[in-house]
């Protein structure tokens, strides 16, 4: 872990990564200070519905009279939270599976990878509906479902990293010195995998945010937790396409989602670059 200062130095040189982090910090700030920044409370009906943008409502009002700009600002919280928590669940599982599969190999590996294939195959949409039915379309269900279905890619990536590390000489020498499997796993291999896991976490967040947006848009999310996807759901359901309202009602939520995801992507990508020397270039 003494490599952190060096790591930070390299990271600073990656302009993309820096931009990514700045974007993330901005969004986190907006989420934290939402009550101070937003002009209105988004769940309070402050005006007539379907107002066009004006000085009082920079992005107009939605179909029951909430201020759209305020909705978007508060929506940052939901979208961020869902993304980060789901990604955390996903990486935790993926890390565990990847480590075990890659290190122990053999039947364990085969079994785990078959489970990976199985998960990949379960259609996401119907599964989400089942869970909505039993648990109710709530904030937490989306998070859990995204988390338990999206660990597969990180697991694969981490597994291949583990395979590479396994063949490195220091591991073999440690083993010849009599270190047990679990000791090798946790003290030698895992540290080598953590940075990659971090990069995967950032990328998983971007995936989770996109998935949540899609689910909410399709009406499978909780219509009372106003994420950006939910705002788009109402926009579409209330005819935003058929009027010019799409400019201030459909464009902004998608744009914000894109930029947030971009922030995660830039950051995650730069992290990956640093961790893979080949990508660093000369």
């Amino acid at each position, binding site marked *: 872990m003494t490599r952190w200062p060096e790591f930070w130095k390299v990271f600073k040189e990656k302009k*993309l990564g820096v931009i990514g982090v700045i974007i993330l910090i901005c969004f986190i700030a907006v989420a934290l200070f939402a009550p101070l920044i937003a002009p209105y409370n988004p769940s309070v009906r402050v005006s007539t519905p379907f107002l066009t943008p004006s000085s009082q409502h920079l992005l107009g009002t939605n179909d029951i009279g909430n201020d759209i700009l305020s909705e978007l600002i508060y929506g940052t919280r939901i979208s961020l939270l869902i993304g980060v928590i789901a990604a955390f669940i996903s990486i935790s599982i993926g890390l565990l599976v990847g480590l075990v599969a890659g290190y122990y190999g053999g039947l364990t590996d*085969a079994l785990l990878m*078959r489970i990976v*294939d*199985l998960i*990949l*195959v*379960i*259609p*996401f*949409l*119907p*599964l989400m*509906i*089942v869970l909505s*039915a039993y648990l109710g379309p709530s904030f937490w269900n989306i998070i859990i479902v995204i988390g338990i279905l999206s660990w597969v890619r990180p697991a694969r990536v981490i597994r291949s990293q583990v*395979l590479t590390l396994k063949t490195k000489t220091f591991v073999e020498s440690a083993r010849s010195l009599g270190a047990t499997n679990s000791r090798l796993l946790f003290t030698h291999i895992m540290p080598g995998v953590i940075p990659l896991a971090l990069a995967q976490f950032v990328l998983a967040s*971007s995936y989770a945010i*996109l998935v949540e*947006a*899609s689910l909410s*848009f*399709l009406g499978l999310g909780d219509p009372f937790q106003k994420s950006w*996807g939910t705002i*788009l759901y109402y926009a*579409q359901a209330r005819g935003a*396409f*058929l009027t010019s309202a*799409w400019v201030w009602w*459909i*464009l902004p*939520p*998608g744009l914000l*989602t*894109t*930029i*947030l*995801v*971009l922030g995660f*992507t*830039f950051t995650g*990508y730069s992290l990956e670059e640093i961790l893979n020397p*080949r*990508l660093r*270039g000369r």
Partner: protein
Amino acid sequence: MTKFLAQKIAQYALVIFITVTINFFLPRLMPGNPLIYLAGEDVAFLSAEEKASLLADYGLDKPLGQQYIIYLKNITTGNFGYSYQKKKPIADIIKERLPWTLLLTGSALILSSLLGVVFGAAAAWRRGTKTDAALLIQFMFFNSMPSFWVGMILVAVFGATLRWFPIYGAQRAWMPLSGWAYYKDILRHLVLPLTTMVLISIPSTFMIMRYSMLNVLGEDYILMAKAKGLRENTIKYRYAVRNALLPMVTIFMLQLGYMFSGATVIETVFAYPGLGRLMFEAVTGRDYPVLQASFLIITVAVVLGNLLADLLYPLVDPKVRR
């Protein structure tokens, strides 16, 4: 090699079997029943006997275990059953819908792979220059956009406002056209959903190609070729790109499977009559047999993709061959 193959095939057969079983039970866990689609809206006015006879007609009254055996028997003989909602054999419905999904995802796959390879190679070759940065940022941006939102914007701009392209369906439904007009019409309906899918899909191919190309460019033999004084184009195409393309083949195979289910959201936004949208309609309508059939097709596609990828991967990377 054959032992490896046999092992793999056995494993995938198991996956399909387990998936088929899960697919059978999953829809049955969902509450509600399709009775409203059997009797139409006025279900309330059915007597208890009438409802029971309707359930019996469609086999919903048998115990679960028995339904399952019948289900397995049917699947193996290609009988996917009869749809409650659409009142026609499901095999027919799938036959109608499948081509559209294939058309959409197939052309998206080809286009996005081609473009991804071209741009990925270009970016890697120009590593560190403005071109590389520009392409990288552009494709990361595309990758960050929610697919349905891109679709919506295209609908709003090109469909509703400019009216250059139709925004619904795969073809103009009434007064069927023939000959050249027919294909032109299909193409026009394909443009917007295809553009959406391609925009969303290029980034991953681009990134992987770029990554692969960078790896190759970092190899010693490239340095050797440069030292030997070979022409740039030769190095670029004969050595770099060709070698970088190898992992792309497996990616292509994997994408094949995912694209099938990935088209669901886009097909829904554009009401494109493919398999993805069929599944969404079936889920909300509790049309069990249609649901099972579409699950099955998608399962098979993904497993086939994985199988092909597994077969080709060792050929590509000898280090990980077991």
